[in-house]
Every structure is written in structure tokens, then in C-alpha cells.
């Protein structure tokens, strides 16, 4: 890993921390407010790619674990990782990796804008939603004893918000790709 990659990883981790300081937005038709930080997985994967994105999240999860209040709402500490939703926090790392892997395969320079949008959207949905829930939900079920079907039903409330986040992340990632491309130079 070059020093530049290390710096990109650390800067992206710092961006994720700052996204947690931005006040959440509520959209009329969605029950759960959208926090900018929860878009971090999709953004990291689509903008700096699989390896660097996943490392940015390794660093972020370590910041949570060592007790820095970096999660939105000023939360942090080992207790959150040990709590019922710890799987969603640890799941950020593989989720970012998968998002990045798909984005690297699907999005190339010189493609039409529409194809790039499609690529980032698929990467965000598969990595940032499917992979994350595939890790987070069984974890919840395992530590609380709640049946997986009940957890899955409850999680449905978050899906519309997650799809909105995927759209926002797609648009932002494509804007960054046009303005300051980092994804093609794979680390």
C-alpha cells in the first residue's frame, strides 16, 4: 500500500466521522430519518474502491471500538459493538468491500453516464443493503433470540430509506468520479 493509499483511507474515515456530525434529514414518505453517515458504506465502496474502502471501515470500526464517539449522535465504545445491532457495525467492512468490488467491475472510464449510474446503483444496493442485512439480521437474531423472520419483517421499515440512500450515493459517487476520479486506480 502506497502512502497515498494510506492517506486516502484515513481521509475517507475522517469523512465518515464528519458525516456523523451532520444533522439527519427526514423525508416525508419515510418513517426513519436519514443520517448522512449511513451512506458511508456505499460512498466508500463506490469512490475509493473495494480494498481502500474496506480498510477505511476497518479504521472506522476500530475508532468505535477504542471508545471514540464517532457514530452519529456521538455514540461509540465496545458496548455498541457488543449490543444487539453490532453485526451491522462489523458488517460495514465486508459490505464496503463488496460495494467496491462491484463498482470496480461495472463502472469504467469513458462509459455512458447512464451505465455509470446503473453500475454505482447496483453496487450500492448489493453491497450496502443486501450484504449488510445478510450479516446484521442473523446477528440480531442470534444475540436476542428473536426469530429471523421477525427481524426481517422489522427491517423492511428501513428498506425505502436505504434505497433513497443508494440513489444519493450513486449520484454523489458519479459526481466525484467526474470531478476527481479515484476508482480506476485500484489499490
Amino acid at each position, binding site marked *: 500500500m502506497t*502512502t497515498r493509499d494510506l492517506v486516502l483511507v484515513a481521509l475517507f474515515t475522517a469523512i465518515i466521522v464528519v458525516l456523523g456530525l451532520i444533522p439527519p434529514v427526514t423525508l416525508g414518505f419515510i418513517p426513519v430519518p436519514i443520517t448522512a453517515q449511513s451512506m458511508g458504506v456505499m460512498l466508500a465502496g463506490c469512490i475509493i474502491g473495494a480494498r481502500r474502502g474496506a480498510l477505511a471501515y476497518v479504521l472506522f470500526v476500530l475508532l468505535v471500538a477504542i471508545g471514540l464517539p464517532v457514530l452519529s449522535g456521538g455514540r461509540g465504545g465496545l458496548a455498541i459493538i457488543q449490543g444487539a445491532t453490532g453485526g451491522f457495525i462489523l458488517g460495514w467492512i465486508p459490505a464496503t468491500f463488496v460495494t467496491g468490488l462491484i463498482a470496480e467491475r461495472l463502472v469504467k472510464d469513458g462509459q455512458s453516464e447512464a451505465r455509470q449510474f446503473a453500475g454505482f446503483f447496483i453496487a450500492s444496493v448489493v453491497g450496502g443493503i443486501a450484504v449488510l442485512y445478510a450479516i446484521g439480521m442473523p446477528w440480531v437474531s442470534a444475540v436476542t433470540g428473536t426469530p429471523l423472520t421477525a427481524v426481517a419483517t422489522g427491517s423492511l421499515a428501513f428498506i425505502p430509506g436505504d434505497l433513497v440512500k443508494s440513489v444519493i450515493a450513486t449520484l454523489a459517487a458519479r459526481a466525484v468520479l467526474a470531478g476527481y476520479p479515484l476508482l480506476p486506480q485500484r489499490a
Partner: protein
Amino acid sequence: MLNGLNVEGTTPLHRMSVRMKLAILLVCGLALYTVSSLFILIPAFAIAALVYFTTGLAFREAVSRLKPILFTILILLIATAYFTSLREAAESFFRLMAIVLFAGAVTATTATGDFIDEITRLLQPLDRLGLVRAADVGLAFGLVLRFVPDIFNHYQSIREAHRARGLKVRPLTILSPLIILTLKDADTIAMAIDARGFRRPREKHH
């Protein structure tokens, strides 16, 4: 801006090594999942609560840290009680809360710098194998802590720029300028690090 969640103190937990605390947390966590008897889980919960509330953390702060975690756990356990049985929900509650309280106690009694030192030490074997550079961890932590205030200033100026133009502040219009503004400094920062020789090349680099 980013102060650790630990408090100064001289309790036995403060004086214990980070590795020991993490090992105990891991072993207790795994062990509690093998028990389902309330006769063990309730005392374990009581001990963990005692440890957590005697770390020197102010009582209100200690309670407010637990609130969001407790909230999620309670909602999930109401579902568990409904779908399975009240007894199972109670077992899960005391088990999870015992682990959460103990983890909270470790966080409250360990300085972030000590954690970083311990992570660096734990990575030494991998460093020797040439898989990671343990010293990079400290450097990366330092960079994050150094740049969070700067990036937050970027965010504030982008927000002001929106307001000056009468635009609504939306995540979409904030994100791309914030990310580009931050990442375009990467080259300069990397050059500054290399110029100071912080990352010396390995002797037998592959």
C-alpha cells in the same frame, strides 16, 4: 472535537492491561452464550452493573450511554417474548446487558492511546510476516484525528455557500464537494509524510 469516552481513575480495571481487559471481555462474552440459567445470568448481570457503575463515570453520563443500546435491546426482546417465550427473552436480556455493561466498563477505563498501542502490538506478528505495517495503524489514527476538524470546517463552508445562494442544504449537494475537497489533498499529505520519512521502506520489500 473527538474526546475518548474514558474517565481517569485508579480502579483495578484502570490499572489492568488493555490486553487483559479485552481477553476477559472476550472470554466472558463467549462463556455467557453457553449458559441459559437465570441463576447464573442474573448474578453476572449484577456484577457487570456493579463494575460499570463504579468506573468513576458520572451516573447520568453512565445511564445516557446505555439508553440507545437498551432501547434497541428492549424492542427486540419484546418481539422475542412474543414469538418465543418470556423466559427466553429474560435470559437474552440479562446475558446481553451483562456483556454490554462489561464492555462499557472497558471503554470507560481505557484511554484511546492505550488501545492504539495495544492494537499496534497485537499486529506485530503480522508485521513480521510482511502482511501489514503495524506502525501504519498509529499513523492512520493520527491522520483521522488531525483531519476531522478540517473536514468539518469544509462542511460548514459548503453549508454557508449554500445559504448565501439561497439553496437548500441537502445531502446530495453537500457530499460531492465535501468529498472532492477533502480527497484532493491526499497527494500533498502523502508527499509531506514521505518527505519526513515516517514510513521507512522495509528491508526485504516484495
